[in-house]
């Protein structure tokens, strides 16, 4: 079996094992897995309303996945997507309600603010890594919490002690009457177009620019890149910043599209952590991220239908997602199994 086939098979096998184990968990807990998966399916594709909301759910996953994947490609592990996303969310909401501008300026400005906020937060981690050799995994985890508490404090201040900011103005909103009507009043918004555009942007940066080549080279082999005259430190900072930009835009999708405000959070949204799974499943390629985000967005939204339609707690899907991550991460063992299998066939 060629490497290419194995690379595609590993995530697919992981998803299948994840779903099987999920079914086993349902049986053991006394639920009907067939009913469960039917409820999941109709929750995702049941009617145009569900489809609209599923696509809405996919939108931030696309951007979170791009953020993680972009960092991965350049040899960095950005666990801080969550924090960058929260600050992007806040920045977009603030620009969205605090200014009065025509839509052509206001909406891009709000998006830009979100991208800048996310980029800045990731830049800190990149800078610390480049200048002080601080491992980006730990730095970004710590920055996640810092972002969460800072965002909560700022929202409290902005809302005079309340728990959410004002609603963003129509001129900064991503909501669209057209898409709503098309999908039976779902909360689908224009953000999906921006997210897909960013998929193209990531592909373009990595595949079509010199800078992208340098970033990838640093990811492949830092020492070789250094020897070839590339500035490793500069590329680390830049890669982190671009990654954070994607994450910040993910926050803007929630601020300007789904929720239309920013509210105080007791804990993390989870989108950033699921972004790690999205990127892993997508083998860190832009197109792969589209598939990964579609899968996770669908599962997460469809799961909401499971308690009502089948009486199964929606957390079963989170269990399945976590298992899929385990299996993808343990891809080595699946590879070994696949290679043994294909060798046996050749031997016959």
């Amino acid at each position, binding site marked *: 079996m060629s490497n290419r086939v194995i690379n595609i098979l590993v995530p697919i096998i992981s998803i299948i094992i994840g779903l099987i184990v999920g079914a086993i*968990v349902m049986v053991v*807990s006394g639920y009907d897995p067939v009913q469960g998966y039917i409820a999941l399916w109709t929750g995702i594709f049941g009617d145009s309303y569900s489809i609209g909301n599923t696509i809405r759910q996919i939108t931030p996953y696309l951007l979170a996945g791009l953020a993680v994947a972009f960092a991965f490609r350049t040899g960095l*592990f950005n*666990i801080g997507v969550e924090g960058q996303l929260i600050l992007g969310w806040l920045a977009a909401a603030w620009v969205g309600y605090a200014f009065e501008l025509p839509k052509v300026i206001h909406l891009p400005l709000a998006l830009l603010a979100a991208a800048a906020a996310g980029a800045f937060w990731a830049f800190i981690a990149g800078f*610390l890594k480049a200048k*002080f050799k*601080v*491992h980006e*995994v*730990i*730095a970004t*985890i*710590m*920055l*996640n*919490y*810092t972002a969460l*508490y*800072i965002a*909560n*404090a700022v929202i409290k201040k902005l809302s005079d002690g309340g728990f959410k900011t004002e609603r963003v103005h129509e001129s900064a909103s991503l909501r669209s009457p057209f898409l709503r009507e098309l999908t039976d009043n779902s909360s689908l918004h224009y953000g999906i177009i921006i997210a897909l555009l960013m998929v193209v942007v990531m592909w373009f940066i990595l595949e079509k620019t010199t800078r992208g080549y340098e970033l990838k080279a640093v990811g492949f082999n830092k020492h070789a890149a250094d020897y070839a005259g590339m500035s490793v430190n500069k590329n680390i900072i830049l890669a982190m910043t671009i990654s954070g930009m994607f994450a910040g835009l993910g926050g803007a999708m929630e601020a300007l599209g789904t929720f239309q405000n920013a509210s105080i959070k*007791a*804990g993390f949204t989870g989108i950033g*952590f699921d972004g*790690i799974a999205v990127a*892993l499943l997508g083998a860190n390629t832009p197109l792969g991220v589209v598939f990964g985000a579609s899968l996770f967005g669908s599962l997460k939204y469809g799961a909401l239908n499971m308690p009502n339609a089948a009486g199964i*707690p929606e*957390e*079963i899907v*989170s*269990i399945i*997602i*976590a*298992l899929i*991550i*385990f299996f*993808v*991460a*343990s*891809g*080595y*063992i699946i590879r070994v199994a696949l290679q043994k299998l294909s060798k046996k066939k050749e031997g016959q």
Partner: protein
Amino acid sequence: MGFLEMLYFIIPSAIFYATPLIFTAIGGVFSERSGVVNIGLEGLMIVGAFVGIYVNLEFASTFGAATIWVAMLAAVIIGGIFSLLHAVASISFRADQTVSGVAINLLGLAVTVFLVKMIYGKGQTDMIAQPITRFAIPYLKDIPFFGPLLFRDVYSTSILAFAVAIGAWFIIYKTPFGLRLRAVGEHPMAADTMGVNVNRMRYIAVVISGALGGLGGAVYAQSITGDFSHATIAGQGFMAIAAMIFGKWHPIGALGAALFFGVAQTLSVAGSDIRYIQDIPAVYLQILPYVLTIFALAGFIGKANAPKASGQPYIKGKR
């Protein structure tokens, strides 16, 4: 509040908040000393918290005042078993340890909330009837100054935490097992050459971290929150990682860092009642542990070196 009263309030409260962190952070020390990064401490704490609350709710009438100990023992065992997932994935299957840890966190939260909904039909358990309570140590509490400061509002779990910290220091630095553990984390190939079974050492270390993480979670839930929901453990595990790093991967250092973070937590929870700091917005105290950890890693607060082989799977024969 006068200065002395303030001290009498802050110090016991800081020890109270620090206790779960001490257990979990020392668990992290074991894992990382063996060369396995354990980002999954949060998930292990969540599992421990759930097991603790579940046992406490179901068996309080059977075991009475001993319930908390049974609950903690159960959390230690289940935490250890749960951490085997991380061990198998990251040691035997050569998974990226960070990714595997993230999966542990997601899985721990998902499984426990799933179980709570399945068992109790709602997302949050009732309050437990037998929480961990504090007591005063006879005679010692009458010592002037130190009595009220350290011995008047004592939790038995806090005493255990100090014992675990000292015990961990002894095991890691004074026993052959500890020497092998550190060798495996610094230079697994050299350790292997000397006949140390690298993978077995790492399995043991990860299970210890799971047991202590579970214990930390059970203590947190039974003393601080009193019930279990998806938000019971919100970042405690990551704060334990912060304490481990801030304590420079040393048990006693982790103990000190956890106590310091306990002070920060006390001040951020009760800061508005304390005269000298009531004007400081709570957010600064909330982010303090995380910011300090970054500073520690950047080398602003002495040098903090992680075990050299931390994060890399050991593949026999590969140089």
